[in-house]
């Protein structure tokens, strides 16, 4: 037991003494270009959704939406004005656009729509209801 404590003590001491220095000295990065797109207009700002499933690139007249999962541009949201900044707010899935030249702020809610398989599950309400509420839940 004493020997084990000694070994752990030595390991901890080594990390405290050299660990940070060694890591920063020898740290390297690796990269791979996944894809490059011509988005057709000058990118002005970029924001990403909190789950990382959507990346929003602001251009002069539209927001180009890139999906890392699909590795493609899957939507273009047209804009009626020119904005120069974009931020994503996790509360309510909101895109906040600002224009420093027009002194305007625009808020757009962006909802991703997921197909949810409900086959084999019990449901309450009419089978042909136009709205389906799916609750992911457990019983404890």
């Amino acid at each position, binding site marked *: 037991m004493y020997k084990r404590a000694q070994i752990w003590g030595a390991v901890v001491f080594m990390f405290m003494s050299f660990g940070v220095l060694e890591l920063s000295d020898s740290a390297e990065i690796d990269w791979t270009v996944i894809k490059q797109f011509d988005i057709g207009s000058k990118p002005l700002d970029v924001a990403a959704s909190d*789950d990382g*499933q959507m990346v929003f690139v602001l251009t002069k007249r539209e927001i180009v939406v890139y999906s890392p999962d699909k590795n493609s541009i899957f939507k273009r949201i047209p804009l009626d004005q020119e904005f120069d900044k974009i931020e994503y707010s996790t*509360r*309510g*899935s909101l895109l906040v656009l600002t224009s420093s030249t027009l002194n305007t702020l625009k808020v757009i809610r962006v*909802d*991703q*729509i*997921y*197909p*949810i*398989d*409900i086959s*084999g*599950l*019990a*449901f*309450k*309400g*009419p*089978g042909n*209801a*136009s*709205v*389906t*509420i*799916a*609750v*992911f*839940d*457990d*019983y*404890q």
Partner: protein
Amino acid sequence: MFSNEVKLVVKNFPLNNHKFARKAAQAALAAKEQGKFWEFHHTLFQNYKSINDGKIQDIAKELNLDMEKFNKDMNSKAVQYIINRDVQDGRKIGVRGTPTVYINGKRLNDRKLSGFTEMIEAELKKK
């Protein structure tokens, strides 16, 4: 409210740190095979603090289920498939905790009653 326009479905997402959550999900789906899913579902929620194997059996007996069929269905491949599918579906779309609600496939962020009604109304307007 919205009783003619809205359908409610429970997707199974038993959390690993809840010891009997998966068994409870299996039991509710087995009860469905005897037409008593919602009764089982409500009773499980009423007893969420004391769920264990014995409690699950007690609830099934209280609801007058055919116990042999119930226990067989609880462990059937079909029931396991549904739970595994639901868990995978949830993980794929970013479900991390329970309950997490989707309305017509869109995640509900504001879980107050007003949040539900606003989102439902917005969906109904599109129809």
